[in-house]
């Protein structure tokens, strides 16, 4: 029982880590909390749904469409709106992105209605000894690991990735060293949106798709980056896995309804006890 729960937790956690990495990138680079991260994820899920519905495209192949598409959305958002509030007090960016979020949700409602939709693609489970895991979750986890690994490779090895990390350490110094900070900001928002889209496409196979599905992921991503330490990208990975584990373990003892609050309680506790994250993050 516990083994099953632990593995389920890790499966879910890999996905959280990937989605939260996007939120963490934006926060690390711009000190902006993207409240619209969930709605972006929702757009990714709808992309997958419609591609599957209209063209019968394999949901996992649709990642190749949803990620670039949302990358562009992210870049445009940054270019048009977020750029103007990066240096303003946090209230401005919080509100602006909240506005973007509800507008996206509303547009989706108008375009696609609030009906629950699902992609019926992979059903059934892998059985391995005493454990059983739904196929869609295992595959989503595998994809999440590959995409997250790709993101880390990009951050560690490429010049752009290094520039991005440099901006998140110190914008002024990076600028003096010749990094085009505006471009890095756009890139960061684009990548973050692409990661959210990947999350959306992967959960599209597992959960019901509706315009307001994204909100919980916004909160969970907050928690993950708080757990991991803001601006600490590997920390986000551990934070994601930890959140997955805690949620699954607590579901053993608590009713579903109360279990929803576990993430929030954890969020508040961690903020109070260790605002810099469980691992040494960058202090605000």
């Amino acid at each position: 029982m516990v083994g099953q729960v632990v593995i389920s937790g890790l499966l879910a956690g890999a996905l959280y880590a990937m989605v939260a990495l996007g939120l963490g990138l934006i926060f690390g680079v711009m000190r902006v909390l993207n409240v619209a991260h969930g709605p972006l994820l929702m757009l990714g899920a709808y992309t997958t749904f419609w591609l599957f519905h209209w063209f019968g495209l394999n949901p996992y192949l649709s990642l190749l469409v949803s990620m670039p598409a949302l990358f562009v959305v992210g870049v445009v958002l940054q270019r048009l709106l977020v750029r103007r509030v990066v240096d303003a007090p946090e209230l401005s960016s919080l509100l602006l992105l909240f506005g973007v979020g509800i507008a996206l949700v509303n547009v989706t409602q108008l375009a696609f209605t609030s009906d629950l939709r699902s992609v019926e693609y992979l059903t059934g489970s892998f059985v391995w000894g005493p454990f059983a895991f739904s196929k869609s979750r295992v595959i989503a986890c595998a994809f999440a690991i590959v995409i997250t690994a790709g993101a880390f490779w990009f951050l560690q090895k490429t010049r752009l990735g290094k520039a991005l990390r440099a901006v998140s350490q110190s914008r002024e110094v990076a600028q003096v060293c010749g990094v085009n900070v505006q471009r890095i900001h756009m890139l960061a928002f684009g990548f973050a949106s692409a990661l959210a889209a990947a999350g959306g496409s992967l959960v599209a196979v597992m959960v019901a798709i509706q315009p307001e599905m994204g909100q919980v992921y916004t909160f969970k991503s907050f928690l993950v980056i708080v757990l991991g330490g803001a601006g600490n990208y590997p920390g986000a990975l551990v934070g994601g896995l930890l959140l997955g584990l805690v949620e699954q373990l607590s579901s053993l003892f608590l009713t579903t309804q109360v279990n929803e609050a576990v993430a929030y309680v954890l969020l508040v506790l961690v903020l109070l006890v260790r605002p810099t994250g469980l691992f040494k993050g960058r202090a605000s």
Partner: protein
Amino acid sequence: MKRLLLAGFTVLLVVLAFYPMGGTGYGVRTMLQLFMWIALAQSWNLISGLTGYVSFGHVAFFGMGAYTTAILVTKLGWPWLAACLAGGVTAMALALVIGWPCLRLKGPYFAIAMLGLNEVLRVIVSYYEGLTGGGSGLSMPTLHASVPIYYAMGLVALLVTALAYVIVTSRFGLRLMTIREDEVAAESMGIDTFRYKLYAFLLSALAPGIVGGLAARDQGYIEPMSVFPLITTITMIVMVLFGGKGTIWGPVLGAVLLFTFQEIVWARFIYLHQLIFGGIIIAVVLLMPRGILGVLQQKYNLPRTI
């Protein structure tokens, strides 16, 4: 000019005081909601407009007041006015419990913590079914008291505006604004920043608690989703921002304008209202972050205590 404004304000108060005698039931309830929004916006302004600490879960105090009132009325049979005042007290108690640890958090972390706490509270309320009715909510016995609630709500709005005036013109208010401009500097000048932030936070929780109780009593039925929605917090914030953050009359102006706009426009575009609201938020943040009064203040060199 000052006299003229004062005279105008007095006339307005007299008109509002006699309004329920001539107005329709619908009109009275609409005005009552307007008063509610004025009180909420004004309260948010006390903590966030003055100290710069963004209370992103301020609706928690509204919900706390609503539930306190509903529980006292249904389980203990308290009269509604006493129950609503008790709602203000429990909201302040909640603010003390939340503020004591959370006001040490800086910047976005405080905002996230407040957001999280509101959600926690909502889940707790849904869970303790014996006391709160859980997800199915609480119904209070019907009460035809729109007119008394109208006066109570109006009085709260008036008092909290007066409170804002007293604070902004006092040394206490100056200390709060110093914290907003530069907390480290404030601290090195000898201001016990934590203590003053906590005082402001407590004061900002009182009116939402009372108003939450009044609104609950007026509607007669509450449930977790209806009294803890994030959108209520956002509406308060947008009202304050639109009118002028950190000013005395800004929240009132913002509440009146946005509420009127909502009443007129949203009823016609029911499917578009979130989109329109999102657009308003974006426009306010980008185009006039100082708000109407903030802009006027700068342009015409108006006094700080506007």
